[in-house]
């Protein structure tokens, strides 16, 4: 089964609204990373997380290792936030397992 399960798989947001993406892990993740893959295909690192929370501008992310999940909150969505968001969980031996992604479209 999926070791890293992301939800929702796709999302459409009105510009200026808020949303939350989620990852559930069936592996014992020690750290989590979130990425945005833009329409050109580049994977941009958004957050590197140990258990806890981090905030960067309109983005906020949390990782709960005991409950095995992570969330990414987007506040005041903008058109440039569109793309596919991936979470990745650090498994054994420092390699990361990726989720299938959440495709986000922000509409004006």
């Amino acid at each position, binding site marked *: 089964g999926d070791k890293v399960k992301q939800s929702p798989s796709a999302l459409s947001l009105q510009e200026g609204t808020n949303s939350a993406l989620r990852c559930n892990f069936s592996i014992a993740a020690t750290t989590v990373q979130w990425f945005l893959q833009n329409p050109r295909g580049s994977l941009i690192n958004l957050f590197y997380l140990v258990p806890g929370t981090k905030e960067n501008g309109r983005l906020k992310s949390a990782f709960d290792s005991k409950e095995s999940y992570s969330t990414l909150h987007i506040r005041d969505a903008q058109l440039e936030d569109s793309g596919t968001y991936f979470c990745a969980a650090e498994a054994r031996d420092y*390699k990361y397992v990726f989720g299938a992604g959440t495709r986000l479209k922000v509409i004006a």
Partner: protein
Amino acid sequence: NAGVIQTPRHKVTGKGQEATLWCEPISGHSAVFWYRQTIVQGLEFLTYFRNQAPIDDSGMPKERFSAQMPNQSHSTLKIQSTQPQDSAVYLCASSLDVRGGQNTLYFGAGTRLSVL
């Protein structure tokens, strides 16, 4: 800092030919990872190096895929006798180190391999 550089950006090969993909990690980064991305399988781990030494190649198809890191400034992924199912975007990433909370991954733009 130019980031992780991958060449070529696109490669088209005929079935049975060899393909070599190149990756130049960020200067000073000790860890280099290779991933493969397809629509069906998503992002799959292939292999990684630390301080040029191969650490984990558990994701590599055993028979036709090989990876090397001859020096700290580049790594190569070689696919022999390419097959249509090898068509994918091959992504290279580097990090400062895998330990000590320094494993933030920085990805290159990828090489899109098309096997006809």
